[in-house]
């Protein structure tokens, strides 16, 4: 955006404004754009979810407002705006007021590092991935504020559940991404995407494969397991079924949102759906190549870019459109999976959720990091790191061996850990009654 604005102002008009003004203008423009996009994503996602889940339940879903019910979210939004904003008498007014803001702000900030297409990233932070998760963890504070300020037991329970869940599931999420970071050696999201060019084989590992934009990490065993773990963790972070415990309506009414109404409630809703969108998008970016796809690379090679300043802007446009299309298609596909899971699964209990995160997912990600290390060692390392036996292998052979080894490691680890986890779960409910015998005898007398 900086380049465009700079080109427009300083080159086309010849005004020669200082750089910081242009930077400010371009950042403001991007921010405005994103702030406009985010609520519309939320509106569309609510409609999308309701339609999809209705189909799964042999229903039609909202179909009255507008063509095929498309304006239903607008109507809901109008309803939200016109509702009375109620603050409980016993509530901590300021904290109650600030909580939705604290929840929404981080989700908006997370847009800052999300690349939409080739060369279309608001900020290319070199620690973008970490930034994404660091910022997302802030919203936990907002949830806790909401729960504490509402002075409602259900809200408090919901907030505690939500925060415990978010904090616990951040660990498997980040650890699963660590495996991918090991594969690429960078924390920059843009570079992560660029590493996923190629054809089913990351072009970083086997040089010379044709660039069809299909070198996604999901096609490696490490990436596959990381994706599964990450998606599960994302479900928990985004409070989706089967991990929608913080707002389990059958148990604790609406969780931390119980005492909110009107647009404050709407903000929580907004934050949640935007967060879901972002989690889906980041899953698409990291494991499914983001905007990578057949044709984007070819188009972008002919476009104006830092590497190729003499390109044609038409290709910029085309590559941008195709890239955004790929990204959104993948994102909505993931969101569909989220909806699908919501339609198919009951929810876990809160202690089971914790057990699942800590006792199953985290060990699994640790194993996955080991297999990522194996992958890197087999593919990239040579005699200088002390790996000599792969010296004479062709890249394809190396790739094949690494694939086989990591696949075996991951499958064995998955089955073994699942068995152990199931056994521990079965064991957990059991208690040794004889320990209590004396106490009970005393109680009875």
């Amino acid at each position, binding site marked *: 955006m900086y380049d465009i604005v700079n080109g427009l102002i300083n080159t086309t008009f010849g005004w020669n404004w200082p750089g910081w003004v242009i930077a400010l203008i371009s950042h403001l423009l991007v921010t405005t754009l994103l702030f406009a996009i985010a609520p519309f994503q939320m509106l569309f996602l609510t409609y999308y979810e309701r339609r999809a889940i209705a189909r799964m339940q042999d229903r039609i879903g909202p179909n009255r407002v507008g063509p095929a019910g498309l304006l239903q979210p607008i109507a809901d939004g109008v309803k939200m705006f016109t509702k009375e904003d109620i603050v409980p008498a016993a509530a901590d007014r300021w904290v109650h007021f600030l909580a939705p803001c604290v929840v929404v702000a981080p989700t908006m900030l997370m847009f800052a590092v999300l690349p939409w297409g080739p060369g279309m990233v608001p900020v290319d932070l070199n620690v973008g991935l970490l930034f994404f998760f660091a910022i997302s963890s802030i919203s936990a504070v907002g949830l806790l504020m909401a729960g504490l300020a509402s002075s409602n037991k259900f809200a408090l329970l919901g907030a505690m559940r939500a925060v415990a869940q978010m904090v616990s599931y951040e660990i498997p999420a980040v650890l699963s991404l660590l495996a991918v970071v090991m594969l690429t050696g960078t924390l920059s999201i843009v570079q992560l995407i660029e590493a996923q060019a190629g054809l089913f084989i990351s072009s970083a590992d086997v040089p010379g494969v044709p660039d069809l934009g299909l070198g996604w990490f999901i096609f490696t065993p490490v990436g596959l397991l990381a994706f599964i773990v990450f998606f599960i963790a994302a479900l928990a972070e985004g409070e989706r079924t089967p991990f929608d415990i913080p707002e389990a309506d059958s148990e604790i009414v609406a969780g931390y949102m119980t005492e909110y109404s009107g647009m404050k409630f709407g903000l929580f809703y907004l934050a949640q759906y935007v967060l879901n969108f972002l989690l889906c998008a980041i899953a698409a970016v990291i494991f499914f190549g983001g905007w990578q796809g057949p044709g984007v690379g070819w188009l972008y090679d002919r476009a104006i870019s830092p590497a190729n300043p003499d390109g044609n802007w038409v290709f910029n446009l085309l590559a941008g459109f195709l890239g955004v299309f790929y990204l959104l298609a993948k994102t909505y596909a993931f969101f569909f999976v989220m909806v699908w899971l919501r339609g198919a699964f*009951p929810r876990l209990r809160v202690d089971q959720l914790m057990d699942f995160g800590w006792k199953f997912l985290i060990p699994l990600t640790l194993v996955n990091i080991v297999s990522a290390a194996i992958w890197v060692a087999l593919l990239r390392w040579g005699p200088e790191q002390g790996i000599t036996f792969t010296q004479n292998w062709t890249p394809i052979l190396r790739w094949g061996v690494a694939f086989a080894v990591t696949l075996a490691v991951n499958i064995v680890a998955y089955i073994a850990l699942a068995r152990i986890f199931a056994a521990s779960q079965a064991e957990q409910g059991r208690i040794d009654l004889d320990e209590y015998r004396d106490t009970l005898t005393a109680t009875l007398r």
Partner: protein
Amino acid sequence: MNTGKLAFPMPLPAGVGTPSAPGGLEGQTSQEKPVRISVRRSRVDGCSTKDPAMFKTEELQINIGPQHPSTHGVFRMLVTVDGETIIDLKPVFGYLHRNHEQIAEQNTYLQNMPYTDRLDYFNSMANNQAYAMAVEKLAGIEVPERAEYIRVLMVELTRILNHAGALGFLINDMGMWQTQLAFGMREREKILDLFEMASGARMMCNYFRFGGVVRDLPPEFMPKLKELLVAMPAFVDELERLLRENEILMQRAEGIGILPKELALAYSVTGPVLRGSGVPYDIRKAEPYSVYDRFDFDVPVGSVGDVYDRFLVRIEEMRQSKRIIEQIVEQLPDARGGHINPRARQNVRPPVGDAYARIESPKGELGFYLVSDGSPRPYRYKVRAPSFINLTPLGDMCRGYKVADVVVILGSIDIVMGEVDR
């Protein structure tokens, strides 16, 4: 009156005696204080803090209900929790009390029939049957064979629709967003269409009369019923595939809300809850009323007595009901008599006396106790509502489990507040 005596005509499994028998279980119900045990045990010596109050947690009282999404009506549970573990639970009900029994004593016998629909609004046909049977017993009215077949058909359809709904609500309480409920409702709607064809109403059927049913099945009923019988196994199989081996459901249901069979008998729960606890007690078998002795069907029982067992027992009961309906479809054309005893009158005036009739309603034993003083209105009218009786062990069943389990246990009991509060 000898109705308090329960007969167990079926061989009981080892260790299960008559209701009040073994183990000195008398009075071992919720009156006693729950056993709370704290075992002080130091695993790492020197590490334990000496101050016991340091880790003392505070008990929290939560009102679940009466305005709560998953209390199945206006029902309140006063829950005392320690963290998320339930220490004590008190069911509070009466919010839906409508004075049913008193109203019934002001009405004539026939006028009460539509009121019984409103008891358990999911199973109006079953309620009708129990009441009609009680009045017929009291007034000595014969029911023609065909009418009996129609009645059994309706009640078995009711059982299927009740279980389809109950399982859907149970799964909904577990957090599966109404998917199974929507599937169950789809089947329920089909059955309700049949009810509407026969009786004119979907839920408040008011179909039974003393001496039969109000009108014969319309000609389009049987073809539709046969179509439904094609869909029914597919529905149940799909339900099993969707949920039976679902790991999350198993985690949520297995070992939760265990009601041991001795205690189940002591609490005098009935229906799928009792059978889920492993007691093969089914009035259709124990004391075959109507024409139930002419059908082959099995009695599914559970082995542990937890939510999962109740879930499975209900699935199996839907299969057995379908089996009964198939037999009815076969036998109905040969049944003698019309749809109603032509001599049965609208205004019954039974002789002085009393009668108790009970049926195996989808939720358990539904009984009507009537006392007649010779007038056209019942002198005393009493409903033995299965939802109400099955609710009594709720407090004890929930103790020691988590808050999230409460709604699941409540859902597995399958109550309808209209019947609990009456």
